[in-house]
Each structure stands twice: as structure tokens, then as C-alpha cells.
């Protein structure tokens, strides 16, 4: 772990929608340079927390700090250059092509008169390269497969060249090969120094790729820390209600959850 202070901090925040409060008086620190995974059962507030981090939702009490300053005090473009979000569902304009969509990620750096500097072009080319979309860059996004389309959105986020990347359930609805392909991609981003915060629903994947886990239940943080410490059979039972044993992954050694057989438990 690096000794840098955490770039993203949540202080005593109450977050919700309209009349419904999802999380009350939540406090959290995202270690700098970490790959943090937020996990928890459905409805625990993972996505809500991520959206509050991304400044999409404003807490009714408390605050979110980015680089030591309250996030609401930054200009929006300033925030956009430091932190980017991959939302759970996104809309692509009809008929847009891959390179165009990726290029939209450059908008925090563009102004009315500077819309396509060489730095923009280079960033887009790098993003296409990093996500292995260079050959597909001229294709229509509508014509791509689900896995490819998700890579386009990731490329757009990469082109935004932020130090912090927030990912809201990036692997949902992808097939297994594409899920791991995407996670490996995030790992390379992490190796290059980016701070990744991802909401993941698969515990094994979270334990395998993240170096810091945040476990949530019913709007509060149950515990946080490295996967090896956090993922225990007791925790899974308590938070998810699933009887299991936790065994080391045969390939990576990270903890994997193996549910008990209900038929043999009854005996």
C-alpha cells in the first residue's frame, strides 16, 4: 500500500432519492492507487454510493471529498478531469460509430474553439489501442456484440484520462470470457497507476482482482480491507445469508466462495 493520502473520502454522508434514504451517515475512504471493489447484496446501496462518489447524487448531509476538497467546490470540468464514471446503463445516440463515441470522452478537455487537439487524437488512439478496438473503430456501435459495446464505453472512460475510474457493475450481462477480459483490462489500468472503484456483484471476481474490498449491507459499510482478510465464511453468511466455505482459488490463491450443499447440510 502506498502512503499517499486517500483521494476519495466520504464523510458522514446520507444519500438517497426523493423521499427514500438509501444510506445514512456513511463514512468511507478509498485508498489511493487501489483497486477497490464494493460488494454486497442487491439493494444494499452499492450503486448509490458510487453515484454519490461520482457527484451524480448529492448527499443530503455530510460530504464527499476529492483530493482533500469538498467535491461540490470544484468546477464540473475539473472533477471530470480527475474522476470518470462508467454508468450502469448508458445511451448511445443512434447511428454513432465507435471512434466517435470514444472521442466523446475527451469533452472535459475540449472547449468551444479547441475541439480536436492532437492530444485529443492521441488519447482516443491510445484508448482504442488499450481496449483492442482499433480495427473496429469505424464500425457502428449498434452492430457490435454486447461485450464489444461495453469495451467501447470503457474506452470512452479511458480516453477521459482520469486518475480515478468509477465503474458501476461493468461486467453484468457479459459472457464469462468477456467478463474476465474486461477485468484484466481494469487490472492493467490499475497497474498503470489508476485508482479503480468498481461495484461488482461476483464475490470471487472481486476477491481476485481487487486489493481492497468494501462490503455493504442495507446502506452501511459492514467492513473493509484486503480480500484475504475480509472474505470469510462468517462474513458471507452474515451479509449474504449464504452458508459456505471459503477456499483459495487454485490459480491465484485469492479467496473463492463455495456454497455448501443444502442437501448435505440438512443431515
Amino acid at each position, binding site marked *: 500500500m502506498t502512503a499517499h493520502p486517500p483521494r476519495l473520502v466520504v464523510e458522514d454522508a446520507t444519500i438517497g432519492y426523493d423521499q427514500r434514504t438509501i444510506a445514512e451517515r456513511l463514512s468511507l475512504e478509498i485508498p489511493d492507487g487501489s483497486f477497490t471493489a464494493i460488494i454486497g447484496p442487491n439493494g444494499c446501496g452499492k450503486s448509490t454510493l458510487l453515484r454519490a462518489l461520482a457527484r451524480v447524487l448529492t448527499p443530503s448531509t455530510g460530504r464527499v471529498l476529492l483530493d482533500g476538497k469538498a467535491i461540490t467546490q470544484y468546477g464540473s470540468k475539473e472533477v471530470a478531469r480527475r474522476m470518470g464514471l462508467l454508468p*450502469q*446503463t448508458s*445511451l*448511445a445516440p*443512434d447511428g454513432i460509430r465507435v471512434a466517435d463515441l470514444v472521442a466523446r470522452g475527451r469533452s472535459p478537455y475540449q472547449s468551444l474553439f479547441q475541439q480536436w487537439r492532437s492530444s485529443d487524437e492521441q488519447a482516443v488512439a491510445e484508448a482504442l489501442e488499450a481496449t483492442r478496438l482499433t480495427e473496429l473503430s469505424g464500425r457502428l456501435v449498434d452492430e457490435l456484440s*454486447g461485450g464489444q459495446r461495453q469495451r467501447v464505453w470503457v474506452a470512452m472512460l479511458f480516453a477521459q484520462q482520469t486518475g480515478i475510474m468509477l465503474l458501476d457493475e461493468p461486467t*453484468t450481462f457479459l459472457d464469462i470470457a468477456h467478463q474476465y477480459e474486461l477485468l484484466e483490462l481494469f487490472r492493467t489500468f490499475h497497474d498503470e497507476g489508476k485508482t479503480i472503484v468498481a461495484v461488482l456483484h461476483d464475490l470471487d471476481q472481486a476477491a481476485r482482482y481487487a486489493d481492497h474490498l468494501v462490503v455493504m449491507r442495507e446502506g452501511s459499510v459492514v467492513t473493509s480491507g484486503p480480500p484475504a482478510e475480509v472474505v470469510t465464511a462468517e462474513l458471507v453468511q452474515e451479509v449474504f445469508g449464504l452458508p459456505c466455505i471459503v477456499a483459495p482459488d487454485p490459480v491465484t490463491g485469492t479467496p473463492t466462495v463455495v456454497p455448501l450443499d443444502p442437501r448435505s447440510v440438512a443431515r
Partner: protein
Amino acid sequence: MTQTAPAASAPPRPGLHRRRAIGLVLLAVALVVACLASLAFGANPLSLEQVWRGLTEPDRSEASLIVWTLRIPRTIVGLLVGAAFGVAGALIQALTRNPLADPGILGVNAGAGFAVTVGVGVFGLSGITGYIWFAFAGAALATVLVYLIGAAGRGQVSPVTLVLAGVALGAVLGGFSTFLTLIDEETFRSLRSWGIGSIALTDLDDTASVAPFLVVGLLLALALAGPLNAIALGEDLAASLGTEVGRTRVLGIVAVTLLAGGGTAMTGGIGFVGLMVPHVVRWFTGPDQRWILATSAVAAPVLVLLADVLGRVIARPGEIEVGIVTAIIGAPVLIALVRRSRAAGL
């Protein structure tokens, strides 16, 4: 638009079932009340006793005459046409998945209006009996044209293309109609009253001849409710459940044409009913098409009849056409409801 994650629909909560059933019963009661009001109120208000006597013992008395020659016809028209527009509106919103869609979007109103304009302006027809079949034919032809434009040799149509084709054809026909009305005062006079929507235009004979089409349309719509539910889950899923998506769409359009075409031919088109009632109904019954169609079929006539009664009472001894009143009382209700935070999109 490309979305990365479709949402799954959840089974209804147990409270919803009870609420829907109660709602339907209440609406049915309201419908009976509305019918009675329609028979009782007007330029010459009658007491319920007089209405009853007029119904059961038809004689030459004034009350009996009023009930039989004036009010029963319009009550029947209000019932039929209200249900027709309400169901047609629900169908079209399910078929096109567009909140701006009303039954006229497939060209029904424009087609009927154009046919009537031609009938009056070119052929010199007059009176609803004269041009009711013109109107119906015009509505049907327009819808067929819209469908052909949208399908253009492929056989399957996307909702967006259908809607655009409807808007396009509607505009063209509307333009021609306006032209014909602006060059001849008589045509203008006839058309300005026709398009507003009134349930007092048709006599029992005309009603009886068009009614079968409306009934067929209603039955067809109810039969389509199940397949429409499946289609709402997504076309692929629907197909895997055994639903024939293409056929459902075509039959749906046929039903809309029968209902909205017949209704427009009889009344000139009562705006807003087909647009508003399904929205409001859906916010209470949830997304099950069977409930939406059934409840719309009952709720819409309530709106139409009450609006008609209001129009007769307020402007005694004259009357304000129902097409005007439905919007004036319906719109605030619609707006108030959409402001509730629960109101979701389509």
C-alpha cells in the same frame, strides 16, 4: 438508442390485485352513474323518476321524447365511442411504446377528416349520415397507407417507422384538408364543427350500423392483451414464449383502425381520451395489458359521458361539445397525476 441493460418486470404484489379489482368495480359503478346522469341532465333536467318512466313507458310526453330521441342515442354513442377510444389509445401506446402516441397517430383522424372534407367540399355531402361511411373509409385507408409505408416490402415494421409514417401522412392529408376548407366558406363551416368531437351527431340508425365494427375491435383488442404483455418483455422473449410478434402488430393496427376509425366517423374524433385514459389507468393498474385494456374500456366512457353532461349543463340552453370538455377536465387530472413522484415512464 442502444441500452446495455434491459429491465425485467416483476410479478404484481398481492395488494395490487385487490386494488385493481376494486378500481374496476368502482369504475363500473361510476359508469352506471354517468349513464344515468347522461339521461337525466341537460337543458331540461329530468328527475330519476321521470327518466325511469320515460324509459319503461314510452309515450308522447316531453320527458319520454327527450329520453328516447335525444339522450339515449347520445348515451349509447358516448359509451361505445368512449370505450373505443380508450382501448384504441391503450393499444397504440402498447404497440408504439411512445408516450406521445394517440389513436390518431396512425392517420385515423387525418384520413377521416380528409375524406369528410372531400365529401363536403367536392361532393357536397352534408350531415353525418351523409359522410359517416366516407369518414370510416378514409380512416381505414389512411391506416393501411401508413402501414404500407412503414412496411414497404419487408413485412415487419418498427414502431418508430410506423409513428413517423403516421405523422407524415397525417400532415399531408391535414394540409390538403386545410386547403380545401380555406377556399370555400361552406366547407370551412362544416369542418370546423365536425373535427371537434360531439356525441350528438349520430342517430340510432347510424350508430347501429357502425357499432358492430366497434364491438369487433374491442373483442380483438382484448384477445391481443396477452400477446401484448409478452411483447412488452421484449420481442425475442415474446417469440420464445410462443407469441407471433408480427401478427400481433398487424392485428393490433386492425383493432385500432376499427375502434378509432369507427369512433371518429361517428363523432369527428374526441381528442385526448385515447391519449390520457391509458396513461392514467396504467399508473393505477400497473403494466398488465389485460387490466389496462379492460379498465380503459370502462374508464374512458365515464370521462366522455361526464364531460358531455358537463358540456350540456354549463352552457344551457346550448351545449359545449364533448371534445372540448374532455380536454379541459382531463388535462389537469393528467398533469396532477404525472407530478406524483411515482408516475413512471412507459
